């Protein structure tokens, strides 16, 4: 009984094995091609679209290709004169340096960095998670990535096949001046970066003088209202770094109450807690234009002393207050001056 059964099942097993081998070997064959194309020159198709997007470089000196080490320790060869730069969420720096990127950061349903809508008017969008085929379609010749976290699990190697990819790193990204100088160095635009920073410091000093004269060194609070939740910014980033760090205004009690080690850039804060806010002026970045009216008309919000006194400046979500960078901070200063200097 078993013997004949075995014969038959052997045949079937063999057929099955054959089918599986076919399946497997069909997969294995395409392995050879990829080593060769990773180092080849940029495609001819890319060049047609190239000229319009990149502003002519002012550096006349003949730049040479250079090899640098990025935040993750990759050796990156930066082209002599990158023409098609991609730097998702680093657009502020690129714009400051006079470079128009080939694509701009976006999230689903058309969310972009609205405060940059002027300089990036004609720049197409790329999803924040950098889909490989999307990156390829823009044919960048140099790619800067902001955070280590966004290129984990082998994504870096894939991106680096498309174009030399430099990871700026979270540590440098924290400080917009450092980030700007690092990027400028990569793109041979250090003089532009130094000028932008000097201009900014001058503007901040002027603003500080005006604000101190008119408003004094009082405390202000910067609140961000999103999906009916309030967040309060500390002095390290974005508009917080501008107002507290560069202009020298005082942090409000609600921020100083949070122990320094558990402070975040944006600290969640309950409406009840907000009732204790004693800031002399409130900047409210309202990302909830429509459905937040019941909160803003509610008794708790209306009961805050500075709200009662009418010392609130509302900024829309398209303002620069949530962002860092020379371009963003310059706009933030303009907003602050027009709100505080009477």
């Amino acid at each position, binding site marked *: 009984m078993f013997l004949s059964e075995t014969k038959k099942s052997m045949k*079937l097993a063999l057929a099955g094995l054959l089918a599986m081998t076919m399946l497997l070997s069909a*997969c294995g064959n395409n392995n050879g091609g990829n080593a060769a194309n990773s180092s080849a020159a940029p495609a001819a198709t890319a060049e047609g679209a190239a000229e319009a997007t990149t502003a002519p470089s002012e550096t006349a000196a003949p730049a040479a290709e250079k090899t640098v080490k990025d935040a993750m320790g990759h050796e990156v060869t930066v082209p002599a004169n990158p023409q098609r730069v991609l730097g998702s969420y680093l657009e502020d720096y690129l714009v400051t340096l006079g470079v128009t990127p080939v694509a701009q950061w976006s999230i689903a349903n058309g969310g972009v960095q609205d405060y940059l809508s002027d300089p990036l008017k004609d720049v197409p969008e790329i999803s924040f998670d950098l889909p490989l085929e999307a990156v390829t379609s823009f*044919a960048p010749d140099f790619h800067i990535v902001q955070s280590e976290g966004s290129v984990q*699990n082998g994504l870096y190697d894939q991106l680096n096949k498309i174009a030399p990819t430099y990871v700026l790193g979270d540590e440098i990204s924290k400080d917009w001046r450092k980030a700007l100088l690092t990027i400028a160095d990569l793109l041979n635009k250090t003089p532009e970066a130094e000028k932008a920073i000097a201009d900014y410091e001058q503007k901040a000093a002027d603003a500080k003088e005006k604000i101190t004269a008119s408003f004094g060194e009082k405390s202000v609070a910067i609140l961000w209202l999103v999906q009916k939740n309030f967040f309060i910014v500390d002095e390290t980033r974005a508009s917080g770094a501008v107002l507290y760090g560069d202009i020298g205004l005082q942090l409000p009690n609600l921020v100083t109450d949070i122990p320094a080690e558990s402070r975040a850039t944006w600290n969640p804060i309950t409406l009840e807690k907000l009732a204790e806010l004693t800031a002399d002026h409130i900047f409210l970045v309202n990302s909830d234009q429509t459905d937040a009216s019941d909160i803003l008309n509610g008794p708790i919000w209306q009961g805050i002393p500075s709200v009662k006194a009418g010392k609130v400046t509302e900024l829309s979500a398209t303002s620069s207050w949530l962002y860092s960078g020379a371009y963003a901070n310059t706009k933030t200063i303009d907003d602050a001056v027009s709100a505080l200097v009477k």
Partner: protein
Amino acid sequence: MSRMIAPASAKVSHSRHLTILMLLGILIIVMFIVSMNTGLMRLTPLEVVHTLLGDGTRQQKLILFDFRLPRIVISMLVGAGFAVSGCILQSLSRNALAEPSTLGINAGAGFAVIIFISFVPATAAGHIFVLPLMALIGAMLTAALIYFLSYRREDGLSPTRMILIGIAVGAGIYAIQMILTLRLDPQNFQFVSIWLAGKIWGGDWRFVLALLPWIAVILPFALYKSRVLNLLNLGDQTSAGLGMPVEKERLVLLAAAVALSGACISVSGGIGFVGLIAPHLARRLVGPKHQVLLPACALIGSLLLITADTIARWILQPAEIPTGIVVALIGAPYFLYLLAKSKA
């Protein structure tokens, strides 16, 4: 015994089975071609052929050889792996609900990954190879735990007990997993949640190389054990009566199934349902004999996942949805259909 009853019909079904296997093979090839032509970058079929023959632009080569093909190959391998693993587990437990994810093996692998990510930031170097290893270890440990808990000295391993304990262990692990997940920072949280939903990574030939040995060894091994699986399907006592060392064979096959699914999870994350549906479909098509059931399973699994991955890349362009979610979207209605049908 069986030979006396049906020599003629065996021959007929034999050729019918071959036809079905061939048909599945052809469908996979068709889907393979469709998948190569699917993506954000428009490549016409002609351009694909040109690129395959070696004269595409650099961009086209990059997209085809470095992004699309590895991903397609990985989905095929993973699909076959999960399907065969599910098939073995179903036969071992004689329970149609058994598969890596119901047995808690997916949960165990995910758990190991989360623990690892909690301690080593996702950006550390070498991550790409350590992570799969962690998933594999997690899967193995979970399986060992389930086996240990469901083994009784007096009556060996009860399949039903194994399933129930697997579900319980899986639920427990999920709970702890949830707690740990909530403590991750946003960056890692996003990574883990996508991983858990089952996403085939942008694709990388290195993953193919990492996965291939497992598939290439365990699939033929399972096929070699077809007869044992056929017997186990009859029940422990019958198999033991026919002179088979039931407990030993079961342990070996269980280890094979877990290793297979663990290897697949490590590359693709927890894609459930494939291990559940593919054996069901295969059984309907070719019957319960493992000599042909296993190959059919592998082919159906491949077909299912290559299709799911193609849909995942295409449906919400330019965004991608995790492949595991697409499989579940296809799988759930099919299961409801099965349920409705079996009631009638």
